[in-house]
């Protein structure tokens, strides 16, 4: 009995009322989920329709749901930190608890919120936008999602079991080494990110192939919608950057698990190697998430200004050059580590160069609106507010890139304010805009505009109230990751203002949740499939799109092909006769991705605690799943013409 008690006290995180509350609520939520599913007899439905699906639209929806949950978790982390910092000498969180929270906040927001939201939008939009029936590798797509899901679960579990990582979101050794962090938290970090990172890499490959090989006939590369271009740029960056992360974390794992010396101080190891490697991934990573946001803004600006996107070729060139240049700036994250003047000067200039294509994009968006007819829908409002926010964030980024000045900005709240400005004002606003814009395509109804505008204003005002003071706190010497500060420093008032801003954004999030709940209950079904008067192919089919997306694969002749079709129809030009329906070739559902990812989770959990009785069955399960899949030949089927005809007739209300 005592040994069990002893074990439980080490296994579960104990001793903090906040964590106890979380444990209880997690337990209750799980019981509630099991009860609801059992009561309504929905287990079979869950398995057949969702857990085993290979349909890109459903996978996209699951990504979005997970990322909203993670936004909640990361947001609560943020508010806990802001509460602790609201007043000098606050005694709300202990130092070690605060350190865990800023670490998990960073990891969750970048890797388990921004990334899946982005993948969700890729999944929902890309095949529809290029006129494809699914992604190139639907099974792999499902595997990517479940690897992300179980990786995220493993990482989040650390909060209540074993203890969270607390060495910062990039976990520099020697602090993240065995000596600096002897607990299991760092192991959760390594395996949570590793498992989901493999999924990210596969998604990158999947969408590159999808975009290059599965476009509708007639859609040349230079006729692709801008979001598709930005996805291609982002995925190319993923496949070059993520292997670096995988290897870096693997080497760190070797150090911690097998006592290797890649990044240790003694026996010839070198922590600087880790810092270089992690930023070779880490810097491209922020461009991976911002590039698709650029694509989203391009689509929205053009739709709601009712005007063709300005400077298409410039935009493509800018996207691609940002993607390439992002690999040559990593050392600007450690100008202050004594690289010498020449190295610093080189990386300072490469960093500044990124401002050029980015600036060009801003001008192109502005001139898309110029001589347009701007409609202030919520997606458009997010887009318009993004422009000043991102320009200011970009400018402070340029200031940070000035290496000798960076010696005064580095690790200070100035830096914190800068990257939150580009990540919230750029990435988050972009993904919110995209989510609102494509929501009707996902579910067949629009989100409530009024509540969306409340959320928009709260987020925007909250953002400036929260982060503008932080620039000044940084210039006044406040460094990041301090869990408390002295009254004498005079940082109290600005911190209090900043905390108020943080909570305004929190209320903004509640409005988004309310908006979604309200819209599910009350919104009118959209019967047109094209509620925004869109320009690209995804708006030419009913919402939500049928399983096979396009009854007949469209033939593309223009950049904004659906817009051109509508123009022709308005001018009275009859459509080309639709080709005859043919049976549609579709992939079969499979439970293997879910099961295999779950075995990865088991193995990862075993590695975290060094329990071979989890590691071995976990890895064996993974291997068996691979074997089983290798011998499956019956993986596809055809939807007969009759069924397509019936579905189309039902969806289009007889219009087809």
């Amino acid at each position, binding site marked *: 009995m005592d040994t069990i008690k002893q074990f439980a006290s080490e296994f579960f995180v104990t001793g903090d009322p906040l964590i106890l509350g979380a444990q209880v609520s997690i337990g209750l939520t799980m019981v509630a989920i099991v009860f609801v599913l059992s009561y309504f007899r929905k287990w079979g439905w869950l398995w057949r329709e969702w857990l085993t699906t290979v349909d890109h639209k459903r996978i996209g929806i699951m990504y979005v749901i997970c990322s909203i949950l993670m936004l909640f978790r990361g947001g609560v982390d943020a508010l806990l930190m802001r509460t602790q910092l609201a007043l000098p000498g606050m005694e709300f969180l202990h130092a*070690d608890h605060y350190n865990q929270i800023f670490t998990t906040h960073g990891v969750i927001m970048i890797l388990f919120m921004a990334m899946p939201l982005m993948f969700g939008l890729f999944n929902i939009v890309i095949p529809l936008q290029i006129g494809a029936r699914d992604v190139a590798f639907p099974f792999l797509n499902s595997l990517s999602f479940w690897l992300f899901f179980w990786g995220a679960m493993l990482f989040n579990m650390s909060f209540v079991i074993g203890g969270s990582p607390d060495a910062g979101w990039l976990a520099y050794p020697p602090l993240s080494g065995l000596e600096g962090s002897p607990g299991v938290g760092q192991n959760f970090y390594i395996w949570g990110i590793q498992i989901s990172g493999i999924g990210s890499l596969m998604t990158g490959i999947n969408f590159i192939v999808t975009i290059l090989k599965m476009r509708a006939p007639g859609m040349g590369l230079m006729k692709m919608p801008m979001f598709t271009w930005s996805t291609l740029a982002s995925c190319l960056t993923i496949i070059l950057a993520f292997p670096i992360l995988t290897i870096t974390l693997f080497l760190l794992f070797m150090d911690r698990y097998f006592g290797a010396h890649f990044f240790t101080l003694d026996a010839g190891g070198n922590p600087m190697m880790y810092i270089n490697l992690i930023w070779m991934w880490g810097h491209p990573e922020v461009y991976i998430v911002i590039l698709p946001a650029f694509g989203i803004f391009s689509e929205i600006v053009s739709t709601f200004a009712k005007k063709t996107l300005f*400077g298409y070729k410039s935009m493509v060139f800018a996207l691609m050059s940002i993607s390439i240049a992002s690999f040559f700036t990593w050392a600007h994250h450690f100008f202050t580590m004594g690289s010498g003047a020449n190295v610093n000067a080189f990386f300072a200039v490469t960093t500044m160069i990124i401002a050029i294509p980015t600036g060009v994009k801003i001008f192109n968006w502005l001139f898309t609106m110029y001589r347009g007819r701007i409609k202030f829908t919520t997606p458009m409002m997010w887009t318009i507010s993004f422009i000043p926010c991102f*320009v*200011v964030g970009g400018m402070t980024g340029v200031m940070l890139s*000035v*290496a000798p000045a960076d010696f005064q900005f580095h690790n200070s709240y100035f830096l914190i304010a800068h990257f939150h400005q580009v990540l919230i004002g750029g990435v988050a606003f972009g993904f919110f805009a995209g989510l609102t814009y494509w929501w009707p395509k996902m579910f067949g109804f629009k989100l409530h505009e009024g509540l969306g505008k409340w959320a928009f204003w709260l987020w925007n005002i909250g953002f400036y109230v929260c982060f503008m003071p932080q620039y000044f706190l940084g210039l006044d010497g406040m460094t990041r990751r301090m869990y408390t500060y002295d009254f004498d420093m005079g940082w109290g008032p600005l911190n209090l203002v900043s905390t108020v801003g943080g909570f305004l954004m929190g209320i903004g999030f509640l409005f988004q949740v309310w908006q979604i709940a309200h819209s599910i209950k009350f919104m009118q079904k959209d019967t047109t499939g094209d509620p925004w008067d869109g320009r690209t192919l995804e708006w030419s089919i009913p919402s939500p799109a049928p399983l096979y997306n396009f009854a007949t694969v469209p033939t593309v002749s223009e950049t904004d092909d659906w817009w051109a079709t509508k123009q022709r129809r308005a001018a009275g030009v009859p459509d080309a006769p639709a080709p005859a329906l043919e049976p549609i070739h579709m992939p079969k559902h499979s439970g293997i991705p879910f099961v295999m990812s779950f075995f990865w989770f088991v193995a990862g959990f075993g590695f975290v605690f060094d329990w071979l009785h989890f590691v071995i069955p976990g890895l064996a399960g993974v291997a068996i799943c691979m074997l089983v899949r290798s011998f499956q030949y019956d993986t596809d089927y055809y939807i007969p013409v009759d069924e397509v005809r019936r579905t189309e007739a039902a969806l289009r209300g007889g219009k087809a």
Partner: protein
Amino acid sequence: MLLLTAALLTGCGDAMVFDPKGPIAAQQKDLIYISMLLCVVILVPVLALTAYIVVRYRDRKDSDAPYEPTWSHNTKLEIVWWAIPIIIIAILAVVTVRYTHALEPSKPIVSEKEELVIQVTSLDWKWLFQYPEQDIATVNYLYIPEDVPVRFELTSDAPMNSFWIPQLGGQIYTMSGMAMTLYLQADEPGVYYGSGANFSGEHFADMTFFATAVPQDEFDAWVEQVKSTSEPLTVEGYDELRQPGTSHVQQFAGIPEGLFYDIVTRYVVDGQNPHAGHGASAPEAEEASDSADAAEHGHDESHAAH
């Protein structure tokens, strides 16, 4: 939001970085102002243009604004807005490269006065400052003479940290197994806030300290006072000091010979014993400065030894 920014901007004159008390921080402030100015040159017109376009081309029934739904390309205009950022960035790049060389942290500050050497070690979670020429040491506070260049030699005997006194100049990392060099100087007497700017574990937030700049004679008197009122730091005392934990200010009249060098070379691998270098052939304290010289461009000591 613009009002808020404006209100905050008026307050920024008080911020430490904008209130420099030494030549390094002063030049960094100038550089920050130059880069801010260049940014504002772009920022203001872009914001104005955004506001104009959004207001002028909003969708109204009685709008008299022109509407050209297919106008999507204009080579001249696009050349203009490729050119504007290129020019601004080119100017800033030239300025940056010049300043990067001028403000290289290991570059001595030109002065008639002889420099003071202070050896900085970041520990879990405290700062050890050794004054090898004065043969004294302090923990978590600094005294420096005004108007004298100070040559900080920095290392770490714990997870890396970063040594930052905003009013005197920008920060530099302290890293185990290597010594970095940072020149700073205080132009006038005063008490300047300093901190460990890089997260180094649980009590990292407690690694703040004050650097007090005083006239030379007061500094000499302080050295004498430290020498006469405190105990020397011993090797055992240091081992105790480096144990994880926070500390109040401390002072020591005397430091173990070659301690800084030993800390820097703790991880040197020479094929047999990572701690060879102790014992009979223990190097003199001066060599610590030499090793710092060798390391100032970021060479890792353990690699130099390979």
